Structures are given as structure tokens and as C-alpha cells.
């Protein structure tokens, strides 16, 4: 558990951070809360030449409103997200899911931006960002650009971030009045989800008018259960929700590991989608 040697820099502004990243080419890694990067370093699974510690850049922190969107700084810790009144009011799904991340120690160090940029399909927050139709704002040498969540997660541990880009903030459309639920299935409290389902539901007439379903750990990237979402629209009782949830694993290619086979993951995705949507819709 001894990391390899690396150069270290701690910029104090986004511009400075971007310059440091640009100067290092492909060989730099961004250090935020360190909850993903430090284990990779200590297990000698990552060998960056430069570690750019963005932990002292104040502009990356905090939560604010911007019209119909909530803007969360990339460096905002999980603990801050869970307890932030704006997040709780306008993006309850994110607050609820973030409260299930690892343990209190990790939640005090780990950050929303770090979790998304790490692009681990087993992480809870990428699927939540997908379900929320979040947008990720990144800064690079040429200025800022905005990437929709559905384009951000490219492959296993790969995001659309260029090596010289830094994730600065996450924009989440307010979903006031929508029901939500994150159903996390994990073998022990501190472990990653075997499967997780993030459900957002707009209710009408006691049923589901519209639903967004994000899937954790059902493939190389977080996924949206698009077929199930389509079939959930207009589901007016729990039986209809259950029928729609049967499509939740459609098109997924989940991995095999010590906790689950692909078949079991697909089964769980169906069961957990039904449960998450029923709970989100207040029909459970």
C-alpha cells in the first residue's frame, strides 16, 4: 500500500489547474477528495507523473440556484450534498443516493465531482446524474463547455473529459414535485452496489405520468432503462409498474464478479426498478 512516486501541485484557481493539466499531457491525475484515486495509487494500479490537487480551489465548492437549475460545485463533498437545503429541496434523489455512498468518513472526504469524473459504473452517483439529466460543466484551455450526463460516461472508468479538462460544476434541472427513490442493493453497508436503481417519477392521477430510471453497475457505464421508462409512462397501478419494470434490464450487459452473475444482476435490475418506481410514485 505504498504509492509510486509522483510530482504534486496544488493550484489555487481553475485556470491554474487547467494549465497544470495541459502541461502534463496524458500523465496527470486530478486529486479531489482522494477516495478513488488514493486507493488506485496505493494499490499501484495508477502511475501518474503529476497529481493536481484541486482541494484548495474555493470556486469549485458550494451549491447555488441558477433559474431552473441547481449548480453544485465539483468539489462539494458528499456530506455537504446530503445536508444542503437546496439539494434536498430541488434534487432530493441526489441527496438520498449520496447518503448511501460508503461510510461517513468517505462522505466527508469524497466529492460529487470526483465521483462523477471517476466514471465508475458501480458508483452510485453516475446513474443518479443520468436519471436527473444533469449537465457537467468542464473547463479546458479553450474555455468552458457543458456535457450532458448521457454523453459524459463513455466507458468503464472513462469519461468525456479530455486530459487537460477539469470538471468544475454539475447543473441539475430542478425536479420539484417529482417523486424519487434510490434503491441500492449491496451485500454489506460499506460495499459498492451490486445493482442500484435511481428512479424519478412525475405522478398524475395516482399513477406514473413520466419516469426516469438510472441503473448502477449494469454495464461498463451507468445506464438509463429507456424501454422501462417508456412503458412506465401511464402505468396507473402497481401491476402496471411491475410489468413495465420487467423491461428494466433490456439491452444491458452487466459484468460478472464475486458478488453476482450477469443473469442475477439483470434479475435484480427488474426487481429493484419495480421497487424504486413504486416507492418514488408513492404506490409501494
Amino acid at each position, binding site marked *: 500500500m505504498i504509492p509510486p512516486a509522483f510530482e504534486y501541485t496544488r493550484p489555487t484557481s481553475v485556470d491554474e489547474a487547467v494549465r497544470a493539466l495541459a502541461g502534463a499531457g496524458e500523465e496527470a491525475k486530478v486529486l479531489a477528495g482522494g477516495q478513488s484515486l488514493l486507493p488506485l495509487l496505493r*494499490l499501484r494500479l495508477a502511475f501518474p507523473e503529476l497529481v493536481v490537487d484541486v482541494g484548495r480551489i474555493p470556486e469549485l465548492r458550494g451549491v447555488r440556484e441558477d433559474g431552473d437549475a441547481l449548480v453544485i460545485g465539483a468539489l462539494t463533498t458528499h456530506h455537504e450534498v446530503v445536508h444542503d437545503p437546496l439539494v434536498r429541496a430541488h434534487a432530493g434523489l441526489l441527496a438520498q443516493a449520496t447518503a448511501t455512498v460508503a461510510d461517513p468518513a468517505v462522505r466527508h472526504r469524497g466529492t460529487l465531482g470526483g465521483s462523477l469524473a471517476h466514471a465508475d459504473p458501480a458508483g452510485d452517483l453516475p446513474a443518479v446524474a443520468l436519471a436527473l439529466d444533469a449537465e457537467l460543466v468542464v473547463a479546458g484551455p479553450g474555455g468552458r463547455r457543458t456535457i450532458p450526463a448521457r454523453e459524459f460516461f463513455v466507458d468503464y472508468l472513462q469519461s468525456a473529459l479530455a486530459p487537460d479538462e477539469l470538471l468544475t460544476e454539475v447543473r441539475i434541472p430542478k425536479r420539484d414535485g417529482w417523486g424519487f427513490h434510490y434503491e441500492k442493493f449491496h451485500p454489506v453497508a460499506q460495499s459498492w452496489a451490486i445493482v442500484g436503481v435511481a428512479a424519478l417519477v412525475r405522478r398524475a392521477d395516482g399513477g406514473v405520468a413520466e419516469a426516469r430510471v438510472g441503473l448502477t453497475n449494469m454495464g461498463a457505464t451507468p445506464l438509463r432503462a429507456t424501454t422501462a421508462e417508456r412503458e412506465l409512462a401511464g402505468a396507473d397501478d402497481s401491476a402496471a409498474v411491475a410489468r413495465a419494470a420487467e423491461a428494466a434490464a433490456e439491452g444491458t450487459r452487466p459484468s460478472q*464478479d*464475486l*458478488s453476482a452473475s450477469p443473469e442475477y444482476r439483470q434479475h435484480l435490475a427488474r426487481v429493484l426498478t419495480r421497487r424504486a418506481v413504486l416507492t418514488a410514485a408513492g404506490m409501494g
Partner: protein
Amino acid sequence: MTDQAVEGEVGRSRLRKEDARLITGQTNWTDNIQVAGLLHLAVLRSPMAHARITRVDVSPALERPGVVAAFSGADLAEGLGSLPCAWPVTEDIVQPDHPPIAVEEVRYAGDPVAVVVARDRYAAADALEAIEVDYDPLPPVLDLEAALAQDAPLVHADKGTNRCYTWPLATGESFDAVRERAEVTLKRRYHQQRLIPNAMEPRAVVVTPLAASGEYTVYSATQIPHILRIMLATVTGIPEHKLRVIAPDVGGGFGSKLQVYGEEVLALAVARRLGRPVKWTESRSEGYLATHHGRGMIQDIEIAATREGRLLGLKVDLLADMGAYLMLVTPGIPILGAFMYPAIYKMDAYAFTCTGVFTTRTPTDAYRGAGRPEATFAIERTMDELAVELGLDPVEVRRRNWIRHEEFPYTTVAGLTYDSGNYEAATEKALALFGYDDLRAEQRRRNERGDTVRLGIGVSTFTEMCGLAPSRVLRDLRYGAGGWEAASIRMLPTGKVEVVTGTSPHGQSHETCWSQIAADVLGVPFDDIEVVHGDTKAAPQGMDTYGSRSLAVGGEAVHRAATTVVEKARRVAAHLLEASEQDLDFRDGVFSVKGSPEARKTIQEIAFETFTNHDLPDGVEPTINAEHVVDPENFSYPHGTHLCAVEVDTETGKTTIRSYVSVDDVGRVVNPMIVEGQVHGGLAQGIAQALYEEAVYDAEGNLVSGTMADYLVPSAADLPEFTTDRTETPAASNALGVKGVGEAGTIASTPAVVNAVVDALRPLGVRDVRMPCSPHRVWQAIQEARSGGAPAAGGTGGTGPAQSGQSGQAAQSGELGQYGQPGEEGPA
């Protein structure tokens, strides 16, 4: 349990003396030790399970910054003997050579092949990557049954076999004879998965040499400083009197530090060669490979009974995974269980064999319970199976067979004499606390409704043998040492007291408990007592701490030594008070003359008078210090009844423990709070085996559960609120009446939980679930039962390491079930 009723120190929930320094960071873990000129050792380990080493070149490492030396196995081989195995269980046991560092062949992934010595830990770790090693792969040996086939590849080619030993025991009537007359027979196969001990403090060792005198001080995170000293002398040739071994504060062991490790030898060898102090500290993932594992066994059980549910006989055939080498007590671990399969039950015949098998995996050895959890699991699972077979309540089947309290002392079919116990009382108390009848009623209702979430109830009425051990019994079992324990008490001139113990605590609270015992006997304040331990210079005689032995043997030695101090002091007091010894009362540390209470001397005054030696009786040595070495006449036999209720979500396979009740009888209790802590920790560890933990290897013999992301140690968040209670039947085998509690919770809980899981699923046609009963395995078992497939479902095989496992393991698939093919079926 309140303290109000307690008069003395024993029985009082004293806060631990140890905690102030532990929780304020003022303690001295081995890794904290700094000495001038300290060098750091790092170990390069084999990435392959089995291979011939064709070349090792350490010279590139020497070019790296900060590196002082680097050695291959061949460089260090001279002057180092084989690592010791102190328990050759049979005369014809196969004992392979076990070099502290591999020279010609590696036999498990993690076997050391080279070391680097550098000025800091980082330089040492970096330089390891420069060492060049060529391997010529050999076939791994992983399946216990296949390993015994004629043409199987061999772990130790020079031995011609993978069979380490076969150890038989047959007592009572012939099993075949009772099987003939039995109305019911059942056969079951159980798998004890491999477990990783996970002490909170990783292993660490520091060696400081004193070149001028040839003396070495070895600091080690060990459970056994005394045994380690003897063994290090033997392996390195350094004379025993030139070796001092210190176990500083040690952060847990669970048996994993009851060992003489290659790294301890290597640190000493390198310090000797360089004449410089050397430190080695393992990382967590290194420890997963290189610290011994626990359990690892296939158990074939056959039971014979009458229709009324009376047991006639029991037959047990074990295959035990030794791993690649025999370590300190590796072969003896299953034998510690051999006598416990009959448990608390009366029967006429018992037949047992155990065959130890070499595999190309990390060696196994003691892990909390060591042999007894395996035995208890098998018999308690089988008692539940018998209850189902006969249509009886599982508690009732046990009641029809257990030894009644009026039958003690009772010699079991296996030949042990249980000194005391009251299974009826513990069971009645547990049933009441649990609300057994109400839970059964709820279970029936839910089964009738066809609930998605089923309720299951598991029973475990366990006993164990601990307090290791009568030395002559150990001799008969071919164990290499005795089972005595030493204590001495020094009465200091100022009236303070030092209790020197040969036990070596690593979390058990000996400082607190030994103080309580001595305070009561001597009548001195608890805070006036210091307990000295874990240093072969300061506490030179001891057999150390393991097997729940410390209190029943070491605590008893303290008690006897203190009693002797009082007797010696009485003689001095009688002289000073001009009375006869018989006319003296001794109470609360004060000698007084019967009938004239103003004539008195405190034991502290006697200590000072003895120090000055101005007025002692003629012929009396000027000391009231005393020491005792206790060799127990018998083991102690804690017992208890554990009841577990689980809810199993049949859609997802997830098991949640709804309630857990334990009623333990550990004899007389010195400190109820510490006993409760031991029970809680033990339950957590036993539940972990039932539901969560498994060391998994792939088909090439790589450990794929190699980090805590994949090896699932439960936390408080995963465990229920435990209801713990006790009955108190004093042990007859020691004056304190104590039995030991370190392993009880672990031994009892695993079968209680698995019995509950299977009980929940029986209405769905499931008859067994292999441990750990993970959600995936439970789900598979339900699927297979529904499709009319194999009932003993949930094979370990078929699932590979995580693509998304944040340990970053590469995706693999298709590895073997740990002890057989996936979905393999028992012989039942």
C-alpha cells in the same frame, strides 16, 4: 448485570485500564517504533500459485535510490532453517521443508522470493519493482479431492503425495454396528470456506541488533512472544539467551498472530547480516496473501438415530486444506475439533477421520475457534436436518439428546469429561428472551401467506473445549509443547503490586482482569496493581495467548500466586503481631488478631517490613513474592444456546438478521462488560462466516478476494442489536470457576445463522446453502429448487472478480469452486 451486588473486584464491570493509552494514541504499536538508523524491509512475492524459480536478479534494485541491500532466497538460505511446525499430528505425517523465503519453487501466490532493504518504506517498495524473477509455471493444486488422486500434480514433488496425514479416532461402539440398528440415517456434506483473519493491526516486526554482544531484540505484533523466542532461536541459530522478544501493544490476532512467520525470521536474518535495525510492516492486501488463513474444509457427516430422535452414532470424515506448507499448528487445527463433533449430545458410537491435504494456497492455521467452529457447525446443522427428517422441533431434538445437568461430570463418547454445565437452563432462558413460540407462529402465518420475505429460525446449542490445555493431553496429541501458564506477583516496598503474567494479550483486557483477580485476593486497590506482560525479559516464563486459555490457565496462575503471597505475608504478620498464624484474620488487605482487632498490619506494611528485613522470623526469606505455574487438569467447557431469526427476501436473496439471542455459560465472570464485548465480537465474526466472508481463488490459484473491497467484512451497520445474556455454572476445573469466552460467540453463531437461512427457505424446497449465504447464492438456491434442480445449491463457482471492483482486479471468469466444482453435490 449491575455492580451493586458485587462486593469485590471480580464480577465488576471495571472500565479497561488499557483504553486510556490506546484511544489517545499514546500506545506503542510495533510499526510506531523508531530507532536510529532504522532500515525498512520490503518483500517481493510470487504472483503465481505454483512455479519453479529459474532466475532471480536483485542487482537492478540496488541501483535504486535509498536501497541498502537486496537479497534473493538463495542469498539468505544459508544459516536459516525451516519454519517450524510444532504439531505433527501423526507419526507418518508428511512435513515438507518450509524455507522462510522461497529458493527453488514458489507454492502459493504470495510466497516470498526476494527482499529489499532501504532507508525508507517508499524506497523499499519502489525498488521491489526492479527485481527480475523468471518463473517456470507448474500446475496449481486447488481441489481437495482431486489433489488426492493418483495422478494429481503435486505441491511438494519430493514427497510423492499431497496427503499430509490421516488422523483417525473411533470411540464407543462401532459406527457400522449402530448404523445397522438405526431407524434413521442422514448424510450431509458441508463446506467450510477459507477465511482471512483481519486483525485490525497488520503484522509488523522490528529487530534491533547489538553487534558487540550478539544480542537481538525482536519487537513483533505477535500473540506468542515466548514461543516465538524459542522458535527464532531454532530457525536462525541465534542462542535463545541472546534473543529478547517483545510484543508491544498488539491490535488483535484472532489466531493469525499465533504464528512464527517468515518475515520475522527474515527481519532477524537481515539485521544480523547488516548489523543494522530493520523494520517490516505488512500492508492489508499483502497480509491477505501472506498471513495465514483460517478454516478451509470439506465435512462429510453421517448420523444414525432412532425414530424418536435419539442419537445412536456419528461419523465424520474431513478433508482439511493445509495450504502450501505446515505452519506452527496447521495440522492440529482440525484435531482441536475432533473431540467436539459429539458436542453436548449423548450417543453410543463415534468415528472420525481427518485427512490433511496440501494445496497451492496460503497456508491455513488457527482462526478464532480453530477446529471447534467447524465441528459445531456440522453437528448443529445436522441436528436441524434430523429434526426436519423426524418432523420434530429442532429444540426438542436437542433436548432428547443433550446431557442433563444432573449427569455432570459426564464423559462423552469422544472421551472428554465435561466438568459442569446446564444446557436446560441456558436454553430455557434463550427461548424466553427470543420469544420462540411467537416467532414460530409468525413464521407459519407468513409461509401460509406465501410471503416474499420469509422468516427463518436457527438454533445452536453449542459447547467447546478451551483453556488449552493439560500438558499430558497435549503430549498424547503429539503437540510440541505444554499447556501450563505462569504468573508471579511482586509486592513492592511501597505497597504497590506488579503482576507478571506469561499470557500475551492483544485486545483481551488482561491488564484489567488480572488486576481484578489480584486485588480481591491481596486486598489492595485495583489501581495499585500493574500487569507486566509481553516481554521475555520482564515476563520470562509463559505459553502466551490463544484458544481461550488466558483466564482459565493464566488467570488461575495469578489467583494462586496471589494466594501464596497472602500465606507468606501471614507468617510475617503473625511474627510482628506476636500471634499464631491460625489466630489471624485476613480481610480487605489487613491482618488482625482474632478478638483484638486493634492489633493489625496491612499487607502493604508487611511488604515494607519484608523489604527492610529488620524483624522477620528466623529462617524466613525476606520476600513475600510468589510465583505459580498452573497446568490444568482438564479443559474448560463453556456452552450456551444461541437463537437467530432471519428474514430472507426471496426475490433478491438478501438475508437480514432480525433478532439474535445468545445465552452463554462461561462460568464465573471476572468482568461482565468485557465478557459482553467478547461475545459481541465473536458473534460478528461467526455471522461474517455465515453470510459475508470468503477467500476466493481463481482456477490459476490467484486470490481474487484480495482487498477489503472484495472480502466483505461486516460492520456494525450490517449487524442486528444482539440480546446477550448468561447463565453461570462455575467450572470445576479451576479455583476461579472460569471457563473462557474468547471464541464462544464465533463458535456458536455460524450454525445458528445458516440454520435460520435454511429454515426460511425449506418451504421453497431448499435444503442447504453453502457459506457464505450471500444474496447471489441464496437466489441461486431458490432458482434451483424451483426448477427442481440440485437442492444443495449455490456453488462457489462461476463468478469472477469484479470488472467494477474498485480494487481494479482484471476481469476473469470461470474459476473453480473453492473446494470442488461449481454446484457440486454432497453424497446425501
